[in-house]
């Protein structure tokens, strides 16, 4: 992504970027690193192995070691880029987390001030214990969740490394706040904590749920007779537990982004990153995506997309609207309108095709001087850029990213908000070859969903169902298909197409394990 940014800027600025240094850590900062660059923790690579993994000439496909088995027999493989950046800017994380009740009880009380939570930013330890470290759990009150995430960094590896270390702690923190509601079957989220409960229950017969719900609301001695709920005279939105989980994940992304911004003052945190995180909780998969990584489910050979990419093209109208409302963000150098190509001075006064934020189709307008400015969104497909700088529109970090040689910040146009989709795992039967595939854009740039699904399905079909490496081998095979082999100086894949020159990271997560485990 770094070079993508660079070359786009270079094109725009007439190639003035030539000879820029590619130092991944420094970025001109004298501040210390919070986390040193490395490969995903679960790979357990030594510094020598990390060095080997960064071999741009051979691009080794690095996989999970036998001794480092991942939960659910999850498969993982990665390969570094073909030379666009010195380091692999993708990062990955896989965790089993146990959300515990807050010490001192009353965990869902509304009394917890937001500021207190904010002031104690997670630093790699906290509410969420790793499963293996906590053998003495009160299973009835603790909530276990599985977590997988991919981060694709750009303009440095700092933000991706930091997010890979910390995002799951933010998720755990937010889930902890609603832990008791989530642990009560069939309960709708109480509208106001600590208030008299009303008829919130989906199943009125759920006596256990009711009493627990009443107790967790903590109203001291509030009389509560399940038979006669108090009457309300206004309608109220029903908020499901599922929505609470979604909200927790969304806020976790926001807090992660704020933490990066805050700690940039103390640490050197370079660049930004996309984030694709999957949480499996209480029989459901929550797929949260901010950026251009992608998740698909392959069930009985069929592709079920479970994420959508956020790119300058997919988010054009949001970005144009923002620029229209706040034109100062464009620094008088860009126009929020889109034209099919750059407008030339001699075309002023003529009528040309354009689109505004209100349109998905095209219309004609009379060209004015203002339309000669560089378009906010320019380029097509993978080459589309916001402010001639960046090719993804959601993610974490990038707080100091500016349009080259200007004072125009990119961050206001970026969103850290993920789209969270829910897949009800428990509602389907899954076979051993039904999997969730997470891939960074290095994978999807060269393979379609269908191609990836066919590759995985046929690989797993030819693989011993009891082989616990089968998902890792399938991931390795998929990375191989996207990377290709070196031929006549270029990376080539099947049908003589160009292989991906980007960092490629893939998780393959079997879906049968969820039912076994929960």
């Amino acid at each position, binding site marked *: 992504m770094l070079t993508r940014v660079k070359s786009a800027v270079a094109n725009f600025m007439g190639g003035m970027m030539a000879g820029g240094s590619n130092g991944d850590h420094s970025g001109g900062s004298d501040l210390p690193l919070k986390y040193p660059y490395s490969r995903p923790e679960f790979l357990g690579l030594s510094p*020598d*192995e990390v*060095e*080997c*993994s960064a*071999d741009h*000439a*051979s*691009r*080794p*496909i*690095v*996989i999970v*070691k*036998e*001794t480092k088995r991942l939960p659910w027999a999850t498969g993982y*493989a990665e390969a570094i880029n073909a030379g666009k950046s010195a380091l692999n800017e993708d990062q990955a994380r896989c965790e089993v987390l146990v959300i515990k009740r807050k010490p001192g009880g009353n965990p869902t009380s509304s009394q917890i001030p937001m500021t207190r939570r904010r002031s104690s930013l997670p630093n790699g330890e906290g509410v969420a214990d790793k499963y293996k470290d906590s053998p003495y759990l009160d299973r009835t009150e603790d909530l276990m969740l599985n977590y997988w995430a991919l981060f694709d960094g750009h303009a440095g590896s700092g933000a991706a490394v930091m997010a890979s270390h910390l995002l799951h702690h933010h998720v755990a923190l937010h889930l902890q706040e609603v832990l008791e509601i989530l642990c009560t079957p069939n309960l709708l989220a109480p509208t106001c904590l600590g208030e008299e409960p009303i008829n919130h229950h989906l199943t009125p017969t759920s006596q256990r749920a009711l009493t627990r719900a009443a107790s967790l609301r903590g109203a001291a001695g509030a009389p509560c007779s399940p038979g006669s709920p108090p009457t309300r005279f206004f309608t109220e939105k029903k908020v499901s537990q599922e929505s609470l989980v979604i909200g927790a994940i969304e806020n976790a992304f926001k807090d992660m982004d704020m933490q990066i911004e805050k700690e940039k003052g103390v640490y050197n945190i370079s660049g930004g990153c996309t984030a694709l995180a999957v949480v499996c909780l209480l029989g459901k998969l929550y797929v949260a995506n901010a950026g251009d990584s992608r998740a698909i489910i392959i069930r009985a050979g069929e592709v079920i997309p479970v994420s959508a990419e956020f790119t300058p093209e997919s988010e054009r109208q949001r970005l144009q609207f923002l620029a229209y409302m706040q034109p100062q963000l464009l620094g008088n150098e860009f126009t929020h309108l889109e034209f099919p190509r750059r407008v030339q001075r001699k075309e002023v006064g003529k009528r040309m095709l354009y689109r505004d934020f209100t349109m998905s189709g095209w219309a004609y307008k009379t060209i004015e001087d203002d339309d000669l400015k560089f378009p906010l969104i320019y380029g097509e497909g993978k080459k589309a850029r916001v402010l001639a700088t960046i090719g993804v529109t959601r993610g974490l970090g990038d707080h100091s990213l500016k349009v080259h040689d200007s004072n125009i910040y990119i961050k206001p146009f970026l969103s850290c908000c993920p789209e969270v989709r829910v897949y009800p795992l428990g509602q389907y039967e899954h076979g051993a070859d039904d999997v969730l595939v997470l891939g960074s854009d290095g994978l999807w740039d060269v393979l379609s969903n269908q191609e990836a699904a066919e590759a995985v399905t046929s690989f797993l079909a030819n693989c011993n169902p009891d082989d616990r*490496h089968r998902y*890792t*081998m399938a991931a*390795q095979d998929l990375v*191989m298909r996207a990377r290709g*082999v*070196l031929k006549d100086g270029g990376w080539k894949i099947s049908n003589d197409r160009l292989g991906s020159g980007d960092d490629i990271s893939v998780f393959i997560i079997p879906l049968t394990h969820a039912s076994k485990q929960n």
Partner: protein
Amino acid sequence: MAYAYLFKYIIIGDTGVGKSCLLLQFTDKRFQPVHDLTIGVEFGARMITIDGKQIKLQIWDTAGQESFRSITRSYYRGAAGALLVYDITRRDTFNHLTTWLEDARQHSNSNMVIMLIGNKSDLESRREVKKEEGEAFAREHGLIFMETSAKTASNVEEAFINTAKEIYEKIQEGVFDINNEANGIKIGPQHPTTNSTLSGSQGGQHAGGGCC
């Protein structure tokens, strides 16, 4: 650690011949009787000294199974040395050498030094391939040859180091283009001829700090 050169090796040969054990014996000086099946590529590294120079060996251990062959092949190109291993107690692993060699010759750079290794020399009673056969094969194909035991460590050091000496000689003879990293050779930060560090007025030789 600073080094004068880095040489990249690849270890190839049928599955079960002792590739991973050889690597472990060389890097960690231990033998692990039950080694996990290699299903991708694994790495090891060690520093050695040749001609008074520190040389870092970076060793890629590959999967021998047919199903991983295309992945393994893709790693030949960037290697300066290859250890081609067979098991002296399994004739089929010796019979497959021709295929391995063809593969290696086709996908590697032409100067790659290949060391033929007959491993498990400690299992004399179960020997199926005579030492002379190994020597003859090596002579015929222009390879260096040794019998080793990853278990007793016999000849393991020698196998890795002799390969490095051969590469080093080729560098001295000017056969290798050391500026092309695709040849599996990297000049270390302390090398006198390196121009990668902009040392300004200091100029010339100075011991470099950490690598990369």
